[in-house]
């Protein structure tokens, strides 16, 4: 079955360009040029994924994201945000509201197609638990025994470092904000300096040695574990 992608973008040429690329990639893409029409279209016929420009006339992208994630009927629809303002705070808010991914203009539409595919694949697998079978960049995690190994050699991590690594490994290739990482490592409602997370990440990278390079800092937003899953597919 062809998967449907709704593009909510007010720049007609960019919307058409994204649509062309997605059509070629085998998706069925439709366009709404404002947030109100976007909401109506989603209510009438829920798409498999939404590509959402953050700067829209009328209801802006973040507000639309909030509404979609608030409503139980639309919460499950994955969202990829697109922004041209380079405002990291918008991206962080969007990710924390539950958007799955984001792209900053100018982006390569090939990469966007690859990300759409990755998000949908992940959605289909419904977030598999990280277990021994999960290996990213040579890192392997055994959740039951709290053991981590890199290229078969066991690595000694603190509990916090372990939780952070497991959290990043649960969605390789996707950015996690610092607040999301704090919540994953220490539970909700824990007030903690964001700098503390940076310190944990630095320690974690050192312990992972060569594989530590796979933990990428996304300036102003957070961290992600690099993964070949999202690599641009030609």
């Amino acid at each position, binding site marked *: 079955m062809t998967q449907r992608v709704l593009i909510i973008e007010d720049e007609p040429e*960019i919307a058409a360009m994204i649509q062309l690329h997605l059509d070629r990639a085998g998706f069925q893409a439709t366009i709404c040029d404002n947030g109100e029409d976007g909401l109506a279209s989603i209510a009438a016929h829920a798409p498999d994924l939404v590509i959402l420009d953050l700067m829209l006339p009328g209801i802006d992208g973040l507000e639309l994201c909030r509404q979609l994630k608030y409503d139980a009927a639309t919460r499950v629809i994955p969202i990829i945000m697109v922004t041209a303002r380079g405002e990291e705070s918008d991206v962080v808010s969007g990710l924390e509201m539950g958007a799955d991914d984001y792209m900053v203009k*100018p982006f390569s*539409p090939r990469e966007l197609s690859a990300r759409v595919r990755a998000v949908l694949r992940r959605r289909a697998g419904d977030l598999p638990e990280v277990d021994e079978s999960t290996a990213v960049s040579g890192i392997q995690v055994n959740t039951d025994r709290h053991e981590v190994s890199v290229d078969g050699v066991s690595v000694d991590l603190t509990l916090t470092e372990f939780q952070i690594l497991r959290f990043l490994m649960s969605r390789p290739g996707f950015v996690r904000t610092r607040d999301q990482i704090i919540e994953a490592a220490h539970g909700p409602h824990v007030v903690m300096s964001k700098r503390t997370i940076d310190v944990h990440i630095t320690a974690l990278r050192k312990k992972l040695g060569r594989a530590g390079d796979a933990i990428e800092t996304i300036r102003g937003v957070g961290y992600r574990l690099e993964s070949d899953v999202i690599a641009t597919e030609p």
Partner: protein
Amino acid sequence: MNRTAFAITLVAAGTMTLCAAMLAPGGAFWGLLTACCGVLAVGVGTTGLVRVVQVGTGPSGREERLRSILNSISTAVIAVRGDDVILGLNSAATVLLDLDDADPVGVPLHQAGVPEPVLAFVAAARRTGSCSTAELSIDSDDHQTLIVRSEPLVVDGDGQGMVLVLDDVTRMRRLETMRSDFAANVSHELRTPITAIQGYAELLDESSQGTDKDHAQVILRNCRRLSAIIEDLLALARLEGESQAAFTVEDSVPVHDLLDAVTRSCADEASHASITMRVDCNDQLAVQGSTALLEQAVSNLVTNAIRYGGSGSMVELRATQAGDAAEIAVVDHGGGIPLEHHSRVFERFYRIDRGRSRQVGGTGLGLAIVKNIVLAHKGSVALKETPGGGCTFVMSLPAV
């Protein structure tokens, strides 16, 4: 009768003095002030406005002269008694606060139509009893922003008096907002068309063959270059626009972690160029500043070193303590830069060899960004020759 012209810069204290003297003509300031009444050039520092005022020195009365001086400055001045009754004010105050036409002298502040935030400020200043300053937003049609200062005033034995000095900084604040919005707006306006060009060029690239494909790839390559230049220009604009307030300063950034992060992010590029990186760093060394910006600065230097170091060579990162400073040196063993260019390499778009620059890529802004980041951290950066050939860039930052 003309006297030598001289200038007084009226800052808050000066204005207070004038006002106090006007209200108490027998005061000690009187003699001093009348002596100054030649041609006065009055500059008001806070707004940058300068007016030249001709003040008579005839027998027309000292009070009138002072009134003329007060009325000629663009800073608003109001003197009030302990019970908030207005003792005197200048014409700038009448205009700024949009007070009623009727003479407000002798009327309490709240009856004269003084805006609520100013009244609240007066009440608060009275409680603390000392000088205070605040920035107030007046919720009128034109959303004024005022800086208000107060200073105690003793009139006729009443110690509760107060002089208020108000400056209209609405325009200044608006300009500041515009400047910080500029970077965000420019980035949106430029990124959107580039996204379209890049997207359609990728479509052409996919669907064409032969020369057409080559042409599409030239477009793509130049798109990437253009967006890199825009990112760098915006980075520079942000750095220059606000210098200090623009970034969060962390108390202690370990230099070792900084260099570690940079070598990780440059690892791919280095291995492509068959370059080995070596880090030599004192573990205790730390500086104050923004990790993100400092990483960017070091990373720009390392990227240059990789590009110009020559295949198979070594790029060294050395960090040492030199007195109060932490010195981070990025050393390459490439062809170096002729001495006559040393003083200009930090200028934007300064190219030593255009052909070479095109070959190795780069935006022409990398070193300008380094310099601005280092200056924002109250440090310095210099270029030296590496013994045996090559470039050594040394960043010197205040150590923690």
